[in-house]
């Protein structure tokens, strides 16, 4: 059986030496370049398959085309004004923000025939309030409150915090995907939005602070998995 592969990180591929690799200039998370663009995706796949016919020794070829542009951080702004803040607690703020985004998230899920990545934490697709309450509760108190609705979390603490965060980010990403004029922001644009004053960003930073207080290497590791580099109060996350 032969293999051909896509490479997103060229130095990694140079070290691991697969028989055939096609290096692409796309961002992490986008190995075939462009979502909902079947022809672009197939062009990348065909280029990787082409190596099956042309390569005669381990090699890395470059895919010559960049991915279609996405909105850079300085070009993109969420159309919604998520303020003003009227809730006193982080939990109240986060639940209010989640509710504000809910109609847009529902539109995206409907357009995707119900498909959602929400639920890696163990929550059902309709339990975003419980996930928000759990994350903000930990951020405020250092403990995850018991979940309503009988959720059987898929992870133990502290790794659960990482996946609560991911589920909430899914809710936010789904919400902006439906909004008119929101474009298709890239990874950094999304991070700048989340950590630029949303209740979710503030909850994640407070949760990271709680993890910092725990005398555990695992807690520090989860902090690094929670906050993308460059967004933790001017410090390294790991």
């Amino acid at each position: 059986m032969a293999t051909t592969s896509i490479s997103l990180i060229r130095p990694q591929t140079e070290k691991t030496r697969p028989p055939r690799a096609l290096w692409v200039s796309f961002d992490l998370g986008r190995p075939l370049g462009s979502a909902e663009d079947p022809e672009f995706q197939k062009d990348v796949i065909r280029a990787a398959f082409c190596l099956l016919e042309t390569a005669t020794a381990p090699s890395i070829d470059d895919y010559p085309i960049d991915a279609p542009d996405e909105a850079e951080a300085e070009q993109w702004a969420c159309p919604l004004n998520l303020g003003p803040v009227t809730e006193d607690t982080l939990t109240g703020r986060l639940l209010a923000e989640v509710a504000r985004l809910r109609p847009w998230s529902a539109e995206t899920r409907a357009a995707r025939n119900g498909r959602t990545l929400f639920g890696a934490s163990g929550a059902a697709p309709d339990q975003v309030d419980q996930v928000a309450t759990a994350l903000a509760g930990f951020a405020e108190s250092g403990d995850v409150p018991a979940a309503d609705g009988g959720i059987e979390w898929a992870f133990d603490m502290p790794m659960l915090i990482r996946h609560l965060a991911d589920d909430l980010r899914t809710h936010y990403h789904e919400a902006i995907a439906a909004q008119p004029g929101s474009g298709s922001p890239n990874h950094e644009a999304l991070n700048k939005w989340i950590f630029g004053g949303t209740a979710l960003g503030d909850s994640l930073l407070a949760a990271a602070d709680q993890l910092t207080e725990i005398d555990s290497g695992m807690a520090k590791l989860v902090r690094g998995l929670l906050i993308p580099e460059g967004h933790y109060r001017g410090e390294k996350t790991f």
Partner: protein
Amino acid sequence: MRARAEALPEIEAGPWLTPKPLAESRVAIVSTAGMHRRSDPPFTLGAVDYRIVPGDAGFDEMVVSHISTNFDRSAFQKDPNIAFPLDRLREMAQCGEIDSVAQWHYSFMGAMPVPTMFEDTGTEVGRLLAADDVDVALLIPV
């Protein structure tokens, strides 16, 4: 992983195989996106195991439990084919570019700084692919 790539150990290249013509080849996807069915156990820290993805699976039953926060999921949320191109392979089989799509595909979670840790499960998946008469495995990171 990008920051640690230079520190990865050198892996010796495997034996060279001359593949069949693509139009006669059965193709499988091996991904490191950490994607799996909602009913599967999620990936855990340091996982080197894998989840099976049936060739007729629909993306509506999939979630991602990859631990890395340094890639965003929004493109995958919009269109899972961007990292797990099952629909694209089906289209290519339909028009004869490839012979067929494998019955089973395999999903690992990347972000493992010691790639040799995958040797046992990688070898196992190789045996499973061979038993499924797969001619070409398309390896896709995330």
